[in-house]
């Protein structure tokens, strides 16, 4: 099973911008265990949600032919807490994309308020400079993952090219 940290896409502009939303609910175990008695959405998982939103945006820009790996958290700043019952939006934009890598910038908002800013770097790992070989099969955008993406496609990401 893959841990997917958003529920659906709201907007998707190929090669440019994607917006995904996540509903935060007490049914999710981690909210009980992160700070017992004080359930808040962990910031580390919001970074993961942004990495998934931005990573799919970067992958789609090259028709999912590259293995897109999170290479660096360039910046992560959080301003406020997110609690159960709230919905967060991951707004990711591609700042730079080339053969080897991509840079994205992103905002996380909740009910119109800025929750955090997360800027990331992704590597297309088959194009790595050290010349390392990776398995031919795309272990990032697997068949299972692509099937899941098809369901997103019907809900806000009509423009995702599969």
């Amino acid at each position: 099973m893959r841990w997917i940290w958003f529920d659906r896409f709201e907007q998707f502009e190929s090669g440019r911008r994607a917006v995904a939303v996540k509903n935060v609910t007490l049914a999710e175990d981690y909210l009980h265990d992160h700070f017992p008695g004080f359930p808040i959405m962990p910031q580390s998982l919001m970074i993961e949600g942004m990495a998934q939103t931005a990573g799919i945006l970067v992958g789609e820009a090259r028709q999912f032919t590259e293995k897109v790996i999170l290479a660096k958290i360039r910046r992560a700043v959080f301003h406020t807490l997110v609690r159960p019952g709230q919905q967060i939006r991951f707004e990711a934009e591609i700042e730079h994309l080339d053969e080897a890598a991509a840079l994205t910038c992103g905002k996380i908002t909740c009910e119109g308020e800025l929750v955090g800013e997360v800027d990331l770097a992704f590597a297309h790992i088959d194009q790595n400079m050290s010349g390392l070989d990776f398995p031919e099969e795309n272990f990032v955008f697997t068949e299972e993952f692509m099937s899941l993406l098809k369901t997103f496609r019907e809900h806000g990401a009509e423009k995702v090219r599969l």
Partner: protein
Amino acid sequence: MATIARDEIFAKVQQTLVDALSVDDDEVTESATLTGDLGAESIDFLDIVFRLEKAFGIKIPQDELMPRDVLENPKYVVNKRLNEPGLAALKSSMPHADLSEFEKDPDIDKFSDVFTVATIVNFVDAKLARQA
């Protein structure tokens, strides 16, 4: 365009490296190497270049800062070492770098030591002077 003093360029480069590499500003000295002293990895170079472009309002084509056409050219690289014509080509492509140490032992694996903070400052300085 007005020219920027070198110490002003250094201050901006220093801030760029503090932000990109999560190092303290007193670690970012002119002689500090990006990979050895400041812990930069390959992906950091892309991040640094992008931040420099934003900070100074310049465009930095990838080959300008690091001439891959020389460093990956089999005509110049023999047994992972740069030969004489390779060193000459490198010097003409990297006037912003002090290559005196690298010349003594032109092992490609040691090339990253050429990238000191001063190399970056010189590069930006020359780039801004050309634009002025």
